[in-house]
């Protein structure tokens, strides 16, 4: 027979002002199964909790109902109090007679009646509660970071420095990401390589970090703490141990006219190449689509000149299997290129370039070794027009969001241009300047006032070539939308930041949700920005949305902290409010008939197939089984299952059924 304790709180007078708490206590005492019913001014206070604990011990209660505020407020408090008194915390329920009763109704019998209804409902529920133990899941203390840009590097270093092993997977031949392509960075004009390469070297030399470059994630199974990842190490056609990085092969390689991805198509590279001088690892890769040997079976010059015979033409892709406990997604972003804009000539005009291409022109390791020369004829451009919001904030083009970093790098570009071409005339067409970071506004102000960049508030409607000049048609909305035409030598489009190519496929491999623009979805935009809805998978950097370097680094450290917290305990402890498929004695073994229609109802792929075999190993039945690590306790499968074979702890069939009947004032047994 149940022995339930009911504790009614006055909450000072928040409850007692409109609810006759004495009457509720009396009514509760009369409910069958209630062994103790008392009211007190402040249940959540220490003396209040003492009352609950004493009652549990003295009357060895089998369940507790605290009629007070919302469970979202003090459920943990009272559950901890019950646990301290030896009662399983999941045998304690809150009856919300404040937010849902005393505060929202006038003083009167109806309000007190409702309070009694609520108490009776929760007493009925608590009689059906079961003692539950928290779920313990082992944790593999190895983290996998996907993406070797600044976010991935920072996350890897932080996790490694917290004493855990890290596997960093980077798709390109070298880590560094877009930051390695930049010339200088706002707002301090630090040289990008100077502040990045030490971190890259630190990653390569860190004992805890295993670096897989020119590699991609093949698949990921498992759940938080127990992922199994398969990484495809694409064949570099090189034995990395023998290669000393001398670079002789790249110098001698005859196939030299391949557009360099690192130089955003402006510079050229050979078929066997190291993307940039400070690459980590500084080991070349053979581009099999352009290498003459792979196309026509001839040449093999690199093999001949290589002092350590490190070239391996027959090398195959290799699959590496690793167990990891957490994954940090830091795959970064990409930008739209000039061929996306019809009004700017669909990429026809050579001197209409995008932001990354300008960075390469300005960079000392760029195709023009840092000299400001335009791609078409190598002349120094006298007049350069920078177009902000090229594609961003433009619903007609399907990119309605602001890409956040273009105002800042456009100001930086204009400033760099002026520093290199003192007599040059830079114009910036903008809609609104968004310089919200620390020292950002001052930086843009400096570009305007000290470097004489001509800021024109208005959109560029069309760019076309006319006798050697790029005619930029726009309007100056601060001067009465006066149409203006600028004959420019070069135009730099600050194009929209978009998701990386392949972001969607990677998200599908990890079951991580993403938005319409293929940016990964954070668990909560404000309160859980570095987590995803998939337990154990975290986010850092621009793969979640376009953002600048300081924010990416901050998010990377945030994600690393989450991973370190996850790895800080031997086992992962989770609330046991999850679904369970019933099991029974043979021959039934389970009421589940194995239709598995529940699998498509589960958003977390938490329902697996379990084969029940007889002692002779013969397959008797295939039934559903819930993976406690993955199930988040939504209960969608529970309401779907026809035979009610799957039930959720904390909101079980019996509990909610009892609540409905009790609320409508009918006894349990009245069938």
């Amino acid at each position, binding site marked *: 027979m149940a022995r339930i304790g009911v504790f009614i709180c006055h909450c000072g007078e928040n409850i007692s002002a409109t609810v006759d708490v004495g009457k509720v206590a009396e009514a509760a005492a009369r409910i069958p199964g209630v062994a103790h019913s008392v009211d007190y001014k402040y249940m959540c206070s220490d003396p209040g909790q003492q009352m609950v604990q004493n009652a549990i011990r003295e009357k060895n209660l089998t369940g507790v109902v605290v009629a007070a505020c919302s469970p979202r407020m003090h459920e943990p408090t009272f559950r901890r109090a019950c646990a301290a008194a030896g009662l399983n915390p999941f045998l304690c329920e809150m009856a919300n007679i404040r937010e849902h009763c005393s505060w929202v109704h006038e003083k009167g019998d109806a309000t007190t009646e409702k309070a009694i209804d609520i108490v009776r409902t929760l007493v009925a529920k608590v009689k059906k509660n079961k003692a539950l133990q928290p779920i313990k899941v082992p944790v593999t203390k190895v983290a996998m970071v996907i993406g070797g840009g600044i976010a991935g590097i920072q996350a890897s270093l932080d996790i490694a420095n917290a004493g855990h092993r890290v596997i960093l997977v980077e798709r390109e031949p070298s880590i560094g990401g877009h930051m390695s392509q930049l010339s200088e960075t706002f707002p301090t004009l630090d040289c990008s390589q100077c502040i990045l390469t030490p971190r890259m070297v630190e990653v390569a030399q860190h004992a805890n970090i295993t670096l897989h470059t020119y590699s991609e994630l093949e698949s990921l199974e498992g759940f938080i703490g127990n992922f199994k990842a398969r990484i495809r190490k694409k064949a570099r056609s090189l034995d990395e141990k023998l290669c000393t990085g001398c670079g002789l092969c790249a110098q001698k390689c005859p196939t030299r006219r391949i557009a360099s991805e690192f130089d955003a198509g402006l510079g050229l590279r050979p078929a066997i190449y190291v993307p940039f001088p400070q690459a980590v690892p500084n080991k070349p890769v053979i581009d099999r689509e352009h290498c003459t040997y792979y196309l026509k079976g001839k040449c093999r010059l690199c093999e001949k000149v290589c002092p350590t015979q490190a070239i391996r033409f027959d090398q195959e892709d290799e699959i590496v299997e690793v167990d990891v406990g957490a994954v940090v997604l830091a795959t970064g972003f990409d930008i739209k290129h000039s061929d996306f804009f019809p009004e700017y000539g669909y990429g026809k005009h050579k001197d209409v370039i995008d932001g990354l291409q300008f960075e390469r022109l300005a960079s000392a390791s760029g195709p023009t070794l840092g000299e400001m020369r335009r791609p078409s004829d190598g002349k120094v451009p006298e007049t350069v027009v920078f177009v902000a919001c090229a594609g961003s904030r433009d619903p007609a083009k399907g990119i309605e969001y602001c890409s956040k970093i273009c105002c800042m790098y456009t100001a930086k570009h204009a400033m760099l241009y002026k520093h290199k071409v003192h007599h040059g005339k830079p114009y910036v067409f903008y809609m609104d300047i968004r310089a919200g970071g620390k020292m950002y506004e001052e930086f843009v102000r400096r570009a305007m006032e000290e470097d004489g960049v001509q800021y024109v508030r208005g959109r560029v409607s069309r760019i076309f070539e006319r006798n050697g000049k790029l005619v930029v048609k726009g309007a100056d909305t601060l001067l009465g939308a006066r149409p203006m035409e600028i004959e420019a030598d070069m135009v730099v489009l600050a194009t929209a930041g978009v998701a990386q190519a392949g972001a969607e496929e990677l998200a599908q491999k990890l079951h991580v949700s993403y938005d319409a623009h293929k940016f990964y979805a954070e668990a909560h935009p404000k309160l859980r920005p570095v987590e995803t809805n998939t337990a154990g998978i975290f986010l850092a950097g621009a793969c979640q949305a376009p953002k600048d370097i300081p924010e990416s680094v901050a998010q990377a450290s945030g994600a690393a902290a989450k991973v370190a917290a996850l790895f800080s305990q031997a086992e992962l402890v989770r609330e046991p409010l999850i679904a369970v498929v019933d099991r029974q004695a043979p021959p*039934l073994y389970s*009421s589940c*008939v*194995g*239709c*598995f*229609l*529940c699998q*498509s*109802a589960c958003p977390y792929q938490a329902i697996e197939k379990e084969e029940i075999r007889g002692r002779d190993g013969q397959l008797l039945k*295939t039934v559903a089984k819930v993976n406690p690590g993955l199930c988040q306790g939504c209960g969608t499968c529970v309401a*779907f299952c*026809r*035979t*009610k*074979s799957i039930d959720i702890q904390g909101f079980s*069939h*019996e509990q909610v*059924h*009892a609540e409905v009947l009790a609320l409508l004032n009918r006894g*349990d047994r009245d*069938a």
Partner: protein
Amino acid sequence: MNALREKARELLAAKTVQVVIGYGRGSGGSARAVFMRAPAQAAELIFDATCLQNLAVYLMKPEVRKLGKAALVATPAALRTILQLAAENQVADNSLLALAPVGEDIMPLATFAAIEAHVAAADHDLSAAEGAELGKFAAMGLEERRRFWEEQFSRCLKCYACRAACPLCYCTRCTVECNQPQWIPVPAHDLGNLEWNVMRAMHLAGRCVNCGDCSRACPVGIPLYLLNQKLISDVSSVFQARSGMAARSDNAMSTFKPNDPEDFIR
């Protein structure tokens, strides 16, 4: 009919199947299910307008499964049932042989792919007459409908013959038998009958293949097919989903589309 008998005798003689489930002549001119084990018995097989029962129901009975691989004389409804059972992981491919009567001769369908192709060829939507009958209900007033069904359900004995006849009611422990909590009241009073019939219809939503056996089995003649046809027409018109068309298909009720209509939600 003799093509059928010939085929059955040949299958049993060659032991390709252990039992042929077909129709035999029952009492009073009706047809009843027969289970042929020996080649000679094949002569009893018949197939004419009286053979309506959906024999696929026997595929789920343990007693029949024990007999080994079965060949089944399959009406279109039975073929749809086999595909729906396949979609619910209850029957495996190549574990049965469907004999689909086409005019005078018999089309053997050994794999789900063959059954799917055969099923796809014909039209399986609700017939015009069935649609019209549903329309008649829609035209009725709310009160008129309530009285109609109240009267129908008042005659329900809770004998659960409809559950026994339905090939898709194969759950080993049906929720009706669950008493902790007592979902469906045991006595055959009005509220209990309503809850049972609503639950039966809802549990067949997106699954029922409209074979009509539930209504034929009901001793008190409640037009149960109307409930299922109503849900079939809703599921197909609102979700464009049709059960029993493919061996591997998502269940309409356990999947969703982001743009499902929600005009009734405030």
